[in-house]
């Protein structure tokens, strides 16, 4: 039986190989996959988030930890799916229409995957119609929008209005982020949440999928 604390350490330090190996061993020995996720991996990502907030970790450390988390989840996800356990949520993520920046969005997408979400990455310059189509066809329950330009922020509002028109606004939580975005703006356009960084975005997404 591997020392599962090592799984926690592997995720915190971003050791994808370690994370995969320990998960493999633990699963082979019959450890419940959810135990691995909830008792070791999620707390590890929480610690990563804490270090980010404390300026001990920056984007590179976030990315490699998310990668280590993902390496383990790739082994665990099929087992959970097979027994009918759904992912934490299904996120349609994209940079809004008119905006071509994707680094921030990609970072949030990898951290959401690391956080146990199924992520449908729609890329950049995503039209409201594309978001709507994904919500309908892939049954996404979170729409995550990014904008880096002050000039493209209004596309977020347009998308929220289009979701309403299409009759799917109530099916999803809308989360937004990006350099020029503020909580005030999120409130103004009727988004369900805003985060100023990628770590906060995962916490926000988790909160969003908890049934009220």
């Amino acid at each position, binding site marked *: 039986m591997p020392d599962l604390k090592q799984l926690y350490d592997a995720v915190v330090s971003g050791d994808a190989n370690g994370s995969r190996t320990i998960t493999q061993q633990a699963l082979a020995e019959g450890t419940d996959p959810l135990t691995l996720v909830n008792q070791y991996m999620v707390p590890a990502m929480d610690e990563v988030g804490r270090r980010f907030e404390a300026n001990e970790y*920056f984007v590179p450390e976030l990315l490699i930890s998310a990668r280590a988390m993902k390496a383990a989840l790739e082994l665990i996800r099929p087992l959970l799916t097979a027994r009918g356990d759904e992912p934490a949520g299904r996120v349609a993520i994209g940079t809004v229409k008119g905006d071509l920046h994707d680094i921030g969005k990609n970072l949030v997408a990898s951290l959401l995957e690391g956080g146990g979400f199924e992520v449908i990455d729609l890329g950049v310059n995503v039209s409201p119609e594309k978001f709507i189509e994904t919500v309908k066809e892939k049954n996404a329950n979170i729409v995550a929008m990014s904008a880096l330009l002050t000039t493209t922020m209004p596309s977020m509002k347009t998308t929220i209005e289009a979701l309403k028109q299409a009759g799917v606004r109530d099916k999803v939580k809308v989360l937004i982020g990006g350099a020029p975005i503020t909580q005030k703006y999120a409130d103004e356009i009727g988004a369900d949440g805003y985060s100023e960084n990628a770590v906060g975005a995962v916490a926000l997404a988790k909160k969003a999928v908890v049934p009220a």
Partner: protein
Amino acid sequence: MSPVIAQLLADGPVVTDGAWGTQLQARGLPLGEFPDTWNLTHPDQVAEVARAYVQAGSQVILTNTFGANRVRLHEQGASAKVAEINARGVEISRRAAGDRAHVFASIGPTGRLLMTGEVTADELRAAFAEQAQALAEAGADALVVETMSDLEEAKLALSAAKQTSLPVVVCVVFDSGKAKDRTMMGNTPEQVAQALTEGGADVIGANCGQGIAGFIPICKRLRAATDRPLWMKPNAGLPTMVEGHAVYNATPEEFAGRIAELLKAGASFLGGCCGTRPEFIEAIRRQLAQG
């Protein structure tokens, strides 16, 4: 020090230019369209922006080539036009500059992250080398590698730019961490200064990311960590939304009012990034004239 840089700095601090993207949008560039291809399709509008900065008193103007690398142009189906777009960009700025200003050609990031494997170091090297060469052949006075969030990408661009034997300015974005004194990848001003000095940058600096107040401590720290002249282009404060439009909250006078502090902190090249306009350059010139 390269003769071009030495000559420019001989008479004291040098005023560079302000933002281009927003100026082009004011002239009809649609949202979501990269400005670079406008060098071919709307050269008159691009020239207007360049002239506006020269008339405002810029001693160095940049070029509308920030995103004119193969990786970014590929997204717009224009990767076959790298050389042409860059050459026209330099020509447009050169004509506007005449003998009143120098033309430093802009090289921006690819928008892809090395560490996630979205792009390889070889692809970056090739993209920057191609762009730098096109800019050099078109007759730029120097190259400016700017708005870099990843020091590794900046170093690759620097080494590609240096192969042209033109002087190279490299500036990065400090916008992360509690004190906003780190790059996105977590590098400090000291680490940036050391790496770029070792990499042979002729001028080192910071641009974008935050307003001028945050640039003052960063400039001091860069000053203490390198012997190279420093290049500073802050944003016009933070944007706020007013009736659906982004408005940067610093006025030209407020911005220029802190230029003395930036000079005291060791800056040599002064200009602005997002939200700054020709009026900001005029205000900096007035401020410097007052001494």
